[in-house]
């Protein structure tokens, strides 16, 4: 048996089609990495506003009409802000302009053209200059300190519970920002996490202290809770888990990104390992060796079962090499964080990738076994490969159908059982099956196709050419 498996491996790995697919995989892997690299290239690219167009529009406006006047002021504000953004182009500066300079500028033009309280203008101009200086120096701490004193002042008042909780949280966020020196940079994951919390917190406390939530509100509350928990985890563990442009992100999505390639390898190997020998006539030398036919078939089956994990390992190593060269390896220390029913689950990135791949094994087993059976029964590589892929496609369609139509017959179909990825995220099967039921169904299908293959192979005549 061992000798047979050894020769099968030689046959597979020396075959041109195998080498070609592997080469294509390396290219595919490289391109995938480049796509991940381009997801965010570090700076924010706002669509550039055409100042000239706004100026032309302003010239056409009739300033005695209140609507036009409002539009005029708004355009002036936009023009001014765009000019500032061009002058101060760091991410933090842009944020400060948008959040702290914009209200003042808006106020300035409103005062100048709408309310026309000209005596205030000097004060406002002074304020603008002050903020501009702060922005020029990227002195974001000033604004944070301002916020802190504002929150502290508010907290001394008599407040309702939601509002009080909200200010407490905002205060904590601001203090944390200062302590950990996190600027208002929208490419900085900690800033984003803090910002997201600050945005969600109002709604969260409102819903939390509200009684009799509607269904939609309940769903919204669950969703916000989840977001808050995850952002809290990011801040507490300084874990950049939302970054999609590093090696960790590709590894996290490895089972999905390279799913098709694994499938191609599985179907290509199991769909050709028997039929190729029949088509090329080499089966005659093989079957006249002193082995039982069942031993020969078993060794072919075992070869595929051993080759696929090796190939996936090869794919992982290629990805680690290419991804490592492009992104570096530092992101691999960041865990994968999954929120499920009030709990945060964390996985080491390699554990997570491994588990995701393992959870796909039933799909590969079923499709591989089908390809293997067709390859043996019809002695046609192309039929084996085509039909297996069709089964995969139809399986996906049926799984989607089954979410809408609850036909009884569906529950006997393997397509509703073969995806075990919910086990990794500690979820449940989307169709409500227990894992054990699914394992039994998958097992029965495997057994059926394998029996069919063995019976046919035992009886098969090597036809005359």
């Amino acid at each position, binding site marked *: 048996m061992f000798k047979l498996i050894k020769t099968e491996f030689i046959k597979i790995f020396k075959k041109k089609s195998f080498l070609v697919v592997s080469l294509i995989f390396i290219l595919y892997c490289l391109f995938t990495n480049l796509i991940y690299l381009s997801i965010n290239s570090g700076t924010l690219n706002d669509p550039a506003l055409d100042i000239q167009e706004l100026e032309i529009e302003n010239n056409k406006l009739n300033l005695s009409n209140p609507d036009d006047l409002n539009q005029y002021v708004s355009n002036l504000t936009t023009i001014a802000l765009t000019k500032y953004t061009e002058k101060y182009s760091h991410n933090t500066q842009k944020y400060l302009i948008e959040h702290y300079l914009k209200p003042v500028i808006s106020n300035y033009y409103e005062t100048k053209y709408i309310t026309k309280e000209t005596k205030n203008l000097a004060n406002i101009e002074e304020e603008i200059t002050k903020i501009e200086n702060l922005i020029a120096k990227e002195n974001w701490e000033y604004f944070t300190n301002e916020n802190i004193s504002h929150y502290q002042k508010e907290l001394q008042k008599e407040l309702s519970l939601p509002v009080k909780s909200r200010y407490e949280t905002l205060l904590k966020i601001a203090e944390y920002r200062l302590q950990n020196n996190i600027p208002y940079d929208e490419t900085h994951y900690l800033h984003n996490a803090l910002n997201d919390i600050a945005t969600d917190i109002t709604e969260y406390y409102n819903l939390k202290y509200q009684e009799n939530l509607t269904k939609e509100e309940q769903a919204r509350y669950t969703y916000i809770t989840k977001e808050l928990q995850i952002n809290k985890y990011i801040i507490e563990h300084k874990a950049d888990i939302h970054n999609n442009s590093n090696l960790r992100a590709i590894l996290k999505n490895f089972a999905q990104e390279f799913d098709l390639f694994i499938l191609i390898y599985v179907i290509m190997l199991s769909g050709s390992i028997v039929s190729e020998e029949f088509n090329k006539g080499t089966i*005659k*030398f093989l079957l006249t*060796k002193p082995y039982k036919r069942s031993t020969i078939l078993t060794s072919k089956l075992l070869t595929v079962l051993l080759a696929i994990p090796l190939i996936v390992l090869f794919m992982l190593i290629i990805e680690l090499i290419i991804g490592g060269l492009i992104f570096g390896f530092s992101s691999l220390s960041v865990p994968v964080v999954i929120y499920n029913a009030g709990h945060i689950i964390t996985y080491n990135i390699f554990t997570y990738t491994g588990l995701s791949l393992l959870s796909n094994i039933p799909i590969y087993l079923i499709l591989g076994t089908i390809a293997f059976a067709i390859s043996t029964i019809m002695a046609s590589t192309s039929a084996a490969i085509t039909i297996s892929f069709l089964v995969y496609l139809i399986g996906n369609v049926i799984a989607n159908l089954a979410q809408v139509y609850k036909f009884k017959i569906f529950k006997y179909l393997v397509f509703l059982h073969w995806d075990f990825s919910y086990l990794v995220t500690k979820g449940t099967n989307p169709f409500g099956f227990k894992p054990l039921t699914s394992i039994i169904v998958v097992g029965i299908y495997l057994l059926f196709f394998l029996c069919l293959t063995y019976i046919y192979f035992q009886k098969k*005549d090597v036809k005359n050419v």
Partner: protein
Amino acid sequence: MTILKVSNLCKKIGKKEILKDVSFEINEGEILAFIGPNGAGKTTTIKCILGLQKMTSGNITINGFDISKDFVKAISKVGCIVESPDVYMYLTGLENIRLQASLYDNVTEEEIEHVIKLVGLDARINTQVSKYSLGMRQRLGIAISLLNNPNLLILDEPTNGLDPEGIKSLRELLLKLSRQKIGILISSHNLSELESFCNKVCIISEGKIIKESSIETIKQVNDSKYIIKVDDTKKVEKLLTEKDTIKDSQYFEVIKEEQEIAQFITKLVKNDIKIYEVRKENLTLEEAFINLAGGQNV
């Protein structure tokens, strides 16, 4: 000692009878030429012997082991080429030999080198098989079939694609092997090609064995072939037996002993047939064989 014994082998595919009661034997040191036209059932018989096709009924034993019960033991001392030497085209000759050798127990590196030299492939053994000619692949196939030191060698049309030099060395190789008490089965659609190889001949036609005999018996046949030119062959038709054939309006062939031909010519003269020419030719082995088998058209 009997190495291969085929008895009452029958094979049906659907309702069609491919093989009808095929029986023959190969003993130590025998080289059996298995002759028949295309579609006569040669390859099917060979595939049944090797277990590549299942027989409908009958019995095949190799070295005393029944192939349907003790396949592994029966096949372990058999070397074969079936139809054509189909090897892995994307591997080199040596890789192919190593691959096949690794499926047997204890084939040493020396033995591998030995068979390569034996078939004369040493110069091109590291070339990819896809670049081989058919003749070279035949040699490679023969090398593979010798790897396990077989005592039964089954070669299906091994002379296909071989040049005269190759046929000569194959003959020498097989004669040498038969002296080492190996039984050999060679099939071909052409007996004349195998005349010098074999010491036993078996003719199969339409799934039936027509005749099995030793080569000496055939060589003892005294009949000769006479080509006769007459004025009009239509006139001789009624005088011919089924062994004889009319070639065209003037020429015809008869197969007779010397005594008979004199009487036959007298008969022609009496029938007022003009004889322009009588030419004697020796029978080829195949013609002698057919003659022996009763003139059936093979």
